């Protein structure tokens, strides 16, 4: 083999690294801490996943720029599950067996969370699920930093019923998120002496809502609650507007905006939809403005920052806080830190993890879509995940491993 200048230089370079390495332990940082993540970066659910992947990269980069954790760098193992549940189980195995990661932050749909949660539990790999969901997961290995129905669904229902009336029509995605959320909707409506006229469920690939829109008009509800998920279900809002319904029956949603639906629809199509959640880009705090400025600097465009991207960022920062508090990544010590009421200040406000449920108390914004923005109507500080707390007490039963549902 002829030795060119380039191969010679690179060989010299790598041997220089090899030689210098043994002399570095004085400042050595040991092996990096491995953070695993599985998110849908393509496919039907990529409207959720892409900004979450960016938020993950940004959080890890910021932690590393600040010197890492415990003097060690953080190494990110990011996998794209392509909106395919089978890939979640595959990559979960890969993360625990091949990569041997120290913590996992990932999963978007509740179906994906349930596909991987037991794998991480069996492998004793701590798992953070940073997405709004239907509540009730009671598992000491699983930390949730997204909102639950008590936090985000109840305020919407409460406000909508006061404003519009007590007859409700529910549309929900046909998997565990939609099914359980629909039960919570019914629970909160009935608590307020209202009636759910009908609940319709739709598989994630349904894109034709013609018969449904006619049926809603036949039922004449005071408002419609939409717990719809993914790109195909976006057609509902489009077809609803195309038939001129936006001015006839108001809409409330438990998911709208989380996938930046308000940007995909024109202002005429989206205006007036009522939602509640942990985050809006309109939050007027230094923490949020600074976060958006850093995002702008890294990615050049903040339009796509949505609630669960912020949740993912906050989840990683909360985990980092616990690692600092514990002074180790050893599981039991870290769990102790997790269960000593850690809290961080994120772009969406305080995130305070509760020991009893491993869920977080969060600031909740009641919002209305206006001119492709999520404008804030009211803010409730530190709303607790009281739905899950009704059933779940991990301090008393640390070996609990199930998801509770509301009885209707």
């Amino acid at each position, binding site marked *: 083999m002829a030795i060119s200048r380039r191969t010679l230089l690179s060989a010299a370079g790598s041997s220089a690294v090899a030689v210098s390495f043994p002399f570095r332990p004085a400042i050595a940082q040991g092996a990096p801490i491995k953070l695993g993540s599985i998110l849908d970066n*393509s*496919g*039907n659910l*990529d*409207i959720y996943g*892409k900004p979450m992947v960016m938020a993950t990269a940004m959080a890890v980069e910021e932690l590393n720029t600040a010197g890492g954790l415990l003097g060690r760098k953080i190494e990110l193992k990011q996998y794209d599950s*392509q909106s395919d549940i089978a890939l979640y189980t595959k990559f979960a195995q890969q993360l625990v067996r091949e990569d041997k990661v120290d913590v996992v932050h990932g999963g978007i749909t509740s179906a994906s969370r349930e596909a991987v949660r037991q794998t991480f539990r069996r492998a004793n790999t701590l798992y953070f699920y940073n997405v709004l969901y239907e509540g009730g997961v009671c598992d000491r290995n699983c930390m949730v930093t997204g909102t639950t129905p008590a936090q985000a669904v109840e305020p919407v229902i409460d406000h909508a019923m006061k404003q519009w009336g007590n007859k409700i029509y529910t549309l929900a995605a*046909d998997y565990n998120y939609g099914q359980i959320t629909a039960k919570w909707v019914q629970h909160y409506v009935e608590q307020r002496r209202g009636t759910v006229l009908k609940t*319709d*469920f*739709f*598989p994630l*690939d*349904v*894109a*034709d*809502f*013609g*018969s*449904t*829109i*006619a*049926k809603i*008009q*036949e039922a004449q509800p005071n408002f419609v609650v939409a717990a719809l998920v993914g*790109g*195909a279900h*976006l*057609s509902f809002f*489009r*077809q609803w*507007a*195309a*038939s*001129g*319904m936006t001015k*006839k029956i108001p809409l409330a949603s438990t998911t709208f905006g989380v996938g930046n639906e308000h940007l*995909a*629809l*024109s202002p005429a*199509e989206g205006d007036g939809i009522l939602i509640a959640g942990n985050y809006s880009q309109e939050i007027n705090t230094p923490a949020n403005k600074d976060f958006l400025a850093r995002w702008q600097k890294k990615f050049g465009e903040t339009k796509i920052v949505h609630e669960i991207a912020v949740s993912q960022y906050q989840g990683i920062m909360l985990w980092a806080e616990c690692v600092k508090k514990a002074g180790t990544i050893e599981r039991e010590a870290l769990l102790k830190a997790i269960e000593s009421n850690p809290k961080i200040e994120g772009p969406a406000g305080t995130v305070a993890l509760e020991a009893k449920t491993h869920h977080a108390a969060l600031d909740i914004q009641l919002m209305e879509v206006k001119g492709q923005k999520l404008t804030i109507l009211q803010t409730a500080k530190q709303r607790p995940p009281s739905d899950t707390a009704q059933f779940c007490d991990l301090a008393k039963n640390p070996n609990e491993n199930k998801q509770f549902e509301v009885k209707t």
Partner: protein
Amino acid sequence: MDYAAVVLLEVCYMIAFLALISAGLAIVFGMMRVINLAHGEFVMLGGYATIAASKAGINIYFAMLVIAPVVVGVIGLVVERLIVRFLYGRIIDTMLATWGLSLLLIGLVTLIFGNTAVSVPAPIPGYQVGRYQMGGYNLFVIAIAILLMLGMWLVLRYTRVGLVARGAMQGADVVAALGHNPKTIYMLTFTAGAALSGLAGGVMAPLTGLLPSVGGAYIAKAFITVITGGAAVIAGTLSTSALFGTVNQLVSFASTPVIGEIAMLALALVLLRLMPQGVTGRLFRNST
């Protein structure tokens, strides 16, 4: 009463939808016996052509009615020259080749447009039926389907081109003996089928979000419509579209859209068991 009108309109829309997405396949399969498993991707390409053109500032009607069929027609022509023409009469090989083609097209579109849902707003506002609001664009889809079916029928039945095309499908030798080149006829027919698929994709684009993998949602419905329809291109497509569209929507109204689809598939199974040659293999035997 108003409700009945609403149901009727939704049924008409579903029939129009099935007829539109099946027309291209009906020509390619019904007339040429070529099983084009990339049919769904032709529809998808029509949708992307429409959205890309309308985002570039071109009038949306021009984009869906002219640009989409022309673009997909040209793609169809290229596909016929490069792949399909070597495989006439070899059904299994054609299936394999066109299936590969469908994967290739999904991959290419993902590379170009990204694996992200895109859409355009419907250009027609809603209207009122009694106390119900309806999608105005649905009427446009129904009108296009009627014009398309009428146009295809007139061409196949009353023009020389249509006569030669039908002749070539029945007896290529005879048509060749009369001085026409069957290969040219096959090529043009395949191109026309692709163009019709592109038109369907363009017209449907404002109603549904578009993903590179959306073809899968169309192809199953198009195939059961065409195969249950049988040999006659227009009578077959129309009769099964009407039957499936009605059943699908009525059951959807009575229960949910999911049960509606199941009812349609169950009906297709029963029909094919009773009439293995398709509806027009038993009824309307001398139709076009």
